[in-house]
Structures are given as structure tokens and as C-alpha cells.
């Protein structure tokens, strides 16, 4: 109580500091930068903060805080544009938004989906800031009560969302999740450094594949290729239906859902080490489970947008708690944020709360204001930007390929990024074609690292405790928090399995020939077996136990499916194949010729470097695929290249060099 009384004057003081016109200006600059960076998939808060970091030194603390917080706060707001309009998960915080947001855009309801998302973001952000105000005073013991077993349980809760997103056949969802988990284990094991499905001869694989590439490959590339084949616009009838006012009303009608998901966001954000990757899935799972009529989820239910979007902005408020009171960053962008604080002469840690509460509250106010300004700007823009969905998609596609390739290249800055993107993109295309749950795959991938590490660490600490005494060990593993989350997980799996059949995240899929689905299943089986053998050959138990367990589960699931394939008729859902009926089968362009365009961009990049390749690709695409005249072809290509150079130049990024650059030294941006 005493601390609360001390907090109120500090809260007021901080408010008067932040309302100074200079600070507001910095805040707005931060918000605009954050929105601009957040729009690009794969860039996000880290890139934005790195951009302003050189200017932090010597800035006055309040302005610096306003600038940085403004930037961080709105990244999960603006990444919604890519998720909804193009089906590209803009960042790990908006993966789940794609599931319902993109189908809404295809129905011509992009503006509605966007404004509902922004209203939810705004509300989540404000709730996050409010909770932060009081919670930060008392959060320390709570954060400390989340040990390794508790974090493992939260990770498992996240994985249990696979049950509800598994699609028509739970076993296929399970197998897809196992494959995602296996993909996440590629590279050097965190525990003992053993190499899994990698060798020192291919350095790229040692660090594994990044989330940006998997997100783009699994979601964006299959959607873009599919849209491009149909040669229409994103909104099927090229017309816009419900407008932005409708979205705001949708949000208001579901305000309690928004409250619950915001609370989930804050709570998960508060726990250091989990990061933002689970929060939107848990929120999405909660949304689906807590609504009565589930039939529209996955094909454009606005609640599927409201849930995750409420949680991901609230998470930023929650994430500031461990960052500020322990000096331990909850995510990559928080780590850069801490670096920025140090440059401003502010030291994160317990003393920030006890001695310097007004600085803390400056951060809280900046967070709240940034959410208001950011969401306000986005709502105002959403009607206009939604028109993009009515443009002929063939004209948008080259720009999207350009953005995706550039975003992917940011993860390692090596040509390997583009190869990985292409390979995972092809995998994504097949997962989509044969109706293997892509959300389940992505959840598996995202949580693989945490699941393995927390499991290894909890096991090691627990066996250490058990050596000391049985009670000691039991108390450690079965804390009240663990039991609580366990209960939620069990309920979530049971509810999920019962309802999964109603929720078709990817819509209905036709069935037809047997051979293609069978071949794909055999390929997945072959990979799982290879991964199992590869892990078995490792020396350390800590490095091999996880991939072997996951691969075993996957192999069993795949074998049962294989038996079903041998017995079932062609109409069985196990033979789902989009090429046998529906939009894809009727598309005027073939799958492989369309994909070849993108492949050509990558091959040309490997030979000539990215910018030259992009120029050739764009000109050829606009002229021959889109059939434009030379004038418009050159104008559009020029705009694309200029825009690309501007972004890369501002962010001080390089482009992938090709073989040509090995021999000839060219000036930027051709390097």
C-alpha cells in the first residue's frame, strides 16, 4: 500500500514530463518509424531500434524513452497489415492473425479485419500499460515463482493448441507438428553442441533455420503462388465489403474476449524466456474454445483476429516488467531496448522501481500514448490500404516476392537464406496442397527450441533435487502453478480434439487421386526416419533424446496414416489434394510455372546479386507474365528497385551478393 501511495505522485510527474511538445514529437517520430518498419515482414522492433540507437547517446532521457518506446509499442500493431492483407505473418506476434484475417481479406472484408485488429491492439496496449503501472511494483515475487518447470508447462500449453488447429484428421495435425518440431532441432544442440541434420561443411545449417524464413515459407509463399495462379485479386470479387466502422463495432461487441486475451498477453509477456512466440497461439486457442459457434474459424471469423491482436500488444506491456525490474530482456527487441536505456544513462534493475519511479512511469505513459497514436493512425489508414486487395494480384506479386526475399535475407545475410526460403516454401506449398495443418507445423517449429531446452533443464535440475530428497524433487516439479497450467492444458487438448473437426483453418479440400498424397506422406516418413537415425548417432543423451522422441511420435502417426491410406477409398480425407478440385485446380496458371518465376529470381540472385536479378525479374515479369506495355513495365520496375534501395539504405542493410560480385567489385547497391 505504501508503495502504491508513493507511486501516484510519480505517475503524475511522469505524465507532465511526457506531455511536453518536444517529447510528443519524439513519440510520434518513434511511432511512425515503428509503423513503417513493422509493415515489413522480418524487420520488426530490432531493426527499428537499431536504427535509432546511434542517436540515443547524448539525448535527454525522456525524449529518448519516448522515441524508443513509441517505436517498440506499435510494431505489433502495424505488422497486422501484412498478416491480413497478404497472409504473411509480419512477425512472430501476428502468426495467428493470419488464420482468420487473410480469409477475411479474400472475402473483401480487409478494412473490417484491419480496424477490428487495430481496435483490439489499442485496447490490449492500453490494458497492458495499466496493468504494468501497478503490477511492476509487486511483480518481482511472481516473476521469480516461474521456474523452469513452469516455463516448460507454458510451452506445452502452447503446443497443445495443435489439437484445435489440427484440421480434419488429428493425426495429420500431430504429424505436421512433429515435423515442425524436428525442423526446429536442425543445427547445433543448445545442451551439448551436437550437430543434428547438419554438418560443419554447410555452415548455414549449424545455426538452424530462423522463424522469419519458416513463417514466410510456410504461409506467405504458398498463398502468393496460389493467388498468382488464379490471376485475380486478393479480394475474390475485387470489391470491398464491410468497412472500417464495422470492425470497430465488432471489437466492441467482443470486448470481454478482448479483455481476456489482453490479460493472457500481459501474463505471458511478464515471464522472461518465453518471448512473444506462444502468446498469440494461446490467445487464438482460447478464443476458439470460448466461443459457441465455431463453424467460421479459419474461414474468416472476426473473433479470430480480435483475440490474438488483443494479446500481442498487451504482451509488450508485460514484457517490460522483466526487462525493467530484472534487467533481463524478454525478447530480442527488449534486449536492444535495454542497450538504448544504457546509452541514455538509465540502468534497468530493481533500483529503477525503488529510486527512479518517474522514469519507469515515463515508459508506461509513452507506451499508452504510442498505442493510441499508432492504432489511431492505422485505423485511419486501413480503409485506404485495404484497396490493395482489389488490385490485380499479378501486379502486386513481384513487389511481394521482392519484400519476402529481402526479409528472408535479413536473418543470416547469406545466400543460404534464399535457398532455405525456397525449400521451405516448397514444403509449405505441399503442406497446403495435401491439407496438412500449417498452423500446427508452425507451432511445432516455434516452440521446438523452448520445449527441448526447458525439458532438458527441468529434467536435470529435478534429478538433482530428487537426489537430495523425494519431497524436494516432487515440490519442484509439481508446484501449484505447474498443476494449474497442467489442468488448463488437459482441458484444452480435450476440448480441442472434440472440436477440431469443425474448425478448418484452411477451408475444405477436395480429394481425388491417391498417388500424390501417398508420395508426400512417404517423403515425410523418410525425413522423420532419417532424423531419428541422425539423432541416434549423436554421442550425448541430452542432444539426442528430444529429436528421437519427437521423430518416434511422428513416425508412429505417419505409419497409422499410411495404413489408413492403404485401406481407405479415394474419397477419404486422408487423400486431400487441392489440385483435384476447387480454386487451385481451376486456376489458369500451373503451380510449377508460377513457382519457377520465384525460383528464377533466386537463381539470378545467386549469379548476379540481388538488385540486378530483381531488375531483370521485374521487367520480365511485368512484361511477359502480366502483359504490360514497356512504359508501365519500366515505371513499375523502377519504383520497386528505388523503394528497395531506399529501405535498405535507411536501415543500412546489404543485399545478397552473387557469383558476379566474387569477380567484380561493384558499388552499393549492386554489391
Amino acid at each position, binding site marked *: 500500500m505504501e508503495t502504491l501511495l508513493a507511486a501516484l505522485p510519480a505517475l503524475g510527474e511522469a505524465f507532465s514530463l511526457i506531455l511536453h511538445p518536444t517529447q510528443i514529437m519524439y513519440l510520434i*517520430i518513434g511511432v511512425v518509424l515503428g509503423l513503417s518498419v513493422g509493415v515489413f515482414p522480418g524487420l520488426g522492433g530490432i531493426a527499428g*531500434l537499431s536504427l535509432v540507437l*546511434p542517436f540515443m547517446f547524448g539525448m535527454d532521457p525522456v525524449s529518448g524513452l519516448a522515441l524508443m518506446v513509441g517505436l517498440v509499442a506499435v510494431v505489433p500493431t502495424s505488422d497486422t497489415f501484412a498478416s491480413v492483407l497478404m497472409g504473411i505473418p509480419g512477425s512472430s506476434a501476428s502468426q495467428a492473425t493470419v488464420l482468420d484475417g487473410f480469409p477475411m481479406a479474400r472475402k473483401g472484408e480487409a478494412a473490417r479485419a484491419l480496424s477490428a485488429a487495430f481496435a483490439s491492439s489499442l485496447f490490449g496496449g492500453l490494458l497492458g500499460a495499466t496493468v504494468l503501472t501497478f503490477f511492476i511494483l509487486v511483480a518481482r515475487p511472481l516473476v521469480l515463482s516461474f521456474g523452469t518447470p513452469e516455463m516448460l508447462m507454458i510451452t506445452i500449453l502452447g503446443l497443445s493448441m495443435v489439437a484445435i488447429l489440427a484440421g480434419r484428421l488429428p493425426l495429420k495435425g500431430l504429424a505436421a507438428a512433429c515435423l515442425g518440431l524436428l525442423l526446429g532441432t536442425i543445427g547445433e544442440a543448445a545442451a551439448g*553442441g551436437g550437430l543434428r541434420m547438419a554438418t560443419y561443411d554447410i555452415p548455414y545449417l549449424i545455426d538452424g533455420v530462423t522463424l522469419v524464413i519458416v513463417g514466410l515459407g510456410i504461409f506467405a509463399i504458398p498463398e502468393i503462388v496460389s493467388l498468382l495462379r488464379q490471376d485475380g485479386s486478393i479480394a475474390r470479387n475485387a470489391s470491398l465489403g464491410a468497412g472500417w466502422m464495422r470492425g470497430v463495432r465488432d471489437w466492441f461487441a467482443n470486448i470481454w474476449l478482448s479483455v481476456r486475451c489482453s490479460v493472457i498477453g500481459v501474463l505471458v509477456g511478464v515471464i522472461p524466456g518465453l518471448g512473444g512466440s506462444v502468446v498469440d497461439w494461446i490467445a487464438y486457442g482460447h478464443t476458439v474454445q470460448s466461443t459457441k459457434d465455431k463453424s467460421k474459424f479459419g474461414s474468416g471469423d472476426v473473433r479470430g483476429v480480435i483475440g490474438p491482436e488483443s494479446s500481442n500488444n498487451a504482451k509488450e506491456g508485460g514484457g517490460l516488467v522483466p526487462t525493467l525490474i530484472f534487467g*533481463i530482456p524478454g525478447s530480442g527487441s527488449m*534486449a536492444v531496448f535495454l542497450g538504448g536505456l544504457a546509452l541514455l544513462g538509465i540502468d534497468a534493475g530493481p533500483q529503477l522501481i525503488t529510486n527512479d519511479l518517474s522514469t519507469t512511469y515515463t515508459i508506461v505513459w509513452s507506451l499508452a500514448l504510442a498505442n493510441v497514436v499508432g492504432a489511431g493512425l492505422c485505423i485511419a489508414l486501413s480503409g485506404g490500404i485495404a484497396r490493395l486487395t482489389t488490385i490485380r494480384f499479378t501486379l502486386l506479386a513481384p513487389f511481394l516476392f521482392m519484400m519476402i526475399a529481402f526479409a528472408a535475407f535479413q536473418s543470416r545475410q547469406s545466400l543460404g537464406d534464399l535457398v532455405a526460403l525456397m525449400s521451405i516454401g516448397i514444403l509449405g506449398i505441399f503442406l497446403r496442397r495435401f491439407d496438412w495443418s500449417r498452423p500446427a507445423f508452425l507451432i511445432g517449429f516455434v516452440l521446438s527450441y523452448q520445449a527441448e531446452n526447458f525439458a532438458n533443464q527441468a529434467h536435470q535440475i529435478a534429478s538433482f533435487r530428487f537426489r537430495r530428497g523425494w519431497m524436494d524433487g516432487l515440490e519442484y516439479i509439481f508446484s501449484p502453478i505447474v498443476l494449474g497450467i497442467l489442468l488448463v492444458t488437459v482441458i484444452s487438448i480435450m476440448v480441442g480434439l472434440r472440436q477440431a473437426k469443425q474448425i478448418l483453418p484452411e477451408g475444405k479440400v477436395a480429394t481425388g487421386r491417391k498417388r500424390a498424397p501417398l508420395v508426400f506422406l512417404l517423403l515425410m516418413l523418410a525425413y522423420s526416419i532419417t532424423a531419428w537415425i541422425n539423432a541416434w548417432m549423436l554421442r550425448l543423451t541430452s542432444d539426442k533424446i528430444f529429436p528421437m522422441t519427437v521423430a518416434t511420435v511422428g513416425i508412429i502417426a505417419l505409419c497409422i496414416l499410411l495404413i489408413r491410406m492403404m485401406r481407405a477409398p479415394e474419397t477419404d480425407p486422408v487423400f486431400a489434394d487441392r489440385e483435384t478440385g476447387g480454386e487451385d485446380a481451376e486456376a489458369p496458371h500451373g503451380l510449377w510455372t508460377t513457382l519457377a518465376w520465384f525460383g528464377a529470381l533466386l537463381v539470378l540472385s545467386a549469379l548476379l546479386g540481388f538488385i540486378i536479378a530483381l531488375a531483370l525479374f521485374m521487367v520480365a515479369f511485368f512484361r511477359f507474365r502480366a502483359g504490360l506495355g514497356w512504359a508501365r513495365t519500366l515505371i513499375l520496375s523502377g519504383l520497386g528497385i528505388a523503394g528497395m534501395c531506399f529501405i*535498405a539504405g535507411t536501415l*543500412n542493410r546489404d543485399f545478397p551478393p552473387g557469383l558476379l560480385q566474387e569477380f567484380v567489385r561493384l558499388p552499393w547497391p549492386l554489391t
Partner: protein
Amino acid sequence: MTDLTKLNISKPAPLAAFGVAAVVASFALAAAPAQAGSHGMDLSGETVEFVIPFSESGGSAKWANFYAPLLSEALPGNPTVVVKYMPGAGSTKGANWFQDQTFEETNGTLIFGSSGSTQFPYLLDDPRVRYEYGDWNVVLASGTGGVAYLPPDIAEQMDGMDATGLQDIDFIWGSQGATRLDLVPLLAWRMLGMNVEPVFGIEGRGDGRLMFERGEANIDYQTSSSYLKGVTPLVEGGSAVPMMSWGALDEAGNIVRDPTFPDMPSFKEVCEATPACSTEGEAWDAWKAFFVAGFPAQKMVFLPQGASDDAIATYTQAFRDIIAREDFAEMSEVTLGDYPQMTGDAAKETLRQGTQVPAEAKAYVKDWLLEAYGVSLD
């Protein structure tokens, strides 16, 4: 609180200009090469890339971002200095890349910041290492130290500096991996006869401290600046007690008490007071060699191979000017701690000590890693 209000009216930084500046600067990379004449370099209008082989979130990022703006002021012509991140394979990717860069092509607009994590794989003959420190030109070396600490009830088991009482306790410790900087504390504890079980796979030393605070781990260590920030409040609150610092090097290369922690015994003192431990022999030599590589020579700035004497002199002078600034001590305390920032011959000597390990020490550590943790670097 008052200082916030006071600072509130300080200069409005030219932020609007920076976007333009950044763009212009990036294009300028392609522009005219630096004039490297006998009168020193002029870098005006240039962009100097300060490449670090880590992500934006680590200690090296803080260190590089601390120096970048100061370097921009101190270099002739005030070039824009941008920090560029090139993470991968525990920093070997960036270092391998830097090995391929030459001075002729970069003309003094490229510098590279390495860290202990870059040196350890080099020293341990990691198969991924394709770089050679001997080819590079060091212009700055920044040292640091480290402190091990214990929960109060366990710290009581120590008899003065004699750690024999700790030998019967089972310790558990959150570690980033046995081949990283964590090798130094692990080896030290082992030499004292302590039984420390590392839980591998934590992502940063901050997570290790959190594990200690949660009571999951009962021993931990932090580098100096993290100790001052994160652990000192715990010590004051009575939930942690410092055990020892790793020490510091004096000018003759001997290990002495860390000047940042004059009241704490160094590991050498604790080792001398503990019968199980010896400050002679191959274990001690190995520990000392890796300690020097990991702490007093932790972070260094290099110009690429083939750098002209002119460029080396220019950068050395720039760093000297930075360190000589009146406000340097105050500014650096938070980010760097109170440690020597060396240039010129001192930096060269540090580099030599940090990148050369006797063959016996190397073999000893490799055998120990394999035997104790099953970690092999072949």
C-alpha cells in the same frame, strides 16, 4: 527525478536529419575512397562500418554502440560510424567473413569487434574457424573481470578463503555451454574440488542469475558490469554473497586482485588457501591461459589485414582521444566497468596473451571437456 526535469530542456537532437543522413551515408559508401596521405586519414563524408559478429542483444552490441558515437567524434573528418551485426555460429561466421576483407578494398572504413567468444573457438581449434588473429591489426583492447557468488547459507561453509567446506555440496549452475566463456568458472570450481553440475543451454548470463534468484541454481558468476548492476542489490539484500573474483592481470602478467573489487579475494588467493587446489601445474596454466583470453583481453577492435600504418595510427589516436576524455570514466562505468581500455603496444601485448595458449593447456582443456561433458570439437 529532478535530473529528468533538468535534462528535459537539453538540446533537441537533430533527429529529423538522421534518416536523411543515414541514407546519404549509405550511398556515400560507394563514393570516393578515403584520402590516406602522410598527414593522416581524412574520413569526412565516409561511413565507417563497425562490424560485430553477434546479434543486437548481446554484451558486444552494448560495447560497440558505446564506442560508435564517440569514435565518430574522434576520427578525423567525423565520419558516420554505424554498428553492423553479423551473428552466426557463435561469432565464427562474422570472424570468417572479416578474414576475407582486405584493407585495399575498404580503405579504413571497416573495423571489426571480436570478443572472448571469438577467441575460445580459435584457441580450441574449432573446425569452423577459418580466421587468423595474426593477420589482423588491433587498435583497441577492452578488458573486464568476473565474480562468482553463492547463497548466504552455502557461503558460510567457506573457512575464510579455504573452499574445502564446499566440496561436499552438490552445486547446480545455469551455463551457456562448456566451450564458451563459462569454461573459466567451470574449470576454477573443479580445481577447488567442488562438484558443480552445469545446466547447459541458457541463453545469456542474465538467465543464469535469474535461475540463481529463483533458487534453481545455487552458484553463479557474472562479468563485472553485470555483477555491479544485477548482483550487488542481491548482496545488499542478503540473498547472495560474493565468493571470489577471477582477478586481473598486472603489468608483469601476474594475477592480482581485481581493482574493481578490492575487497574480494581473487581465485588465485582462494586456490592458494584451499589444499585441493594448486597454482602450479598444467591445470593452473590452462586456467590462466583461458582466463586471460576470456577476461582481460575480452573485446578487441581490429582493422583488416593489410592495413596501412597510417590507418592504424589514425584509429589508435582516435581511441586514445576517446579514453582521454574527461567524461570517459563516468560514461564508461555503466557499460564497460572500471577496466583498462588499451591501445598501441598495450593492446598488442593483450592480443598476444589472449590468442596464444601453450599446446599443453589446450590439450588439457580439450581432454577435460571430452571427459567431463562429452563435448568434442573435432
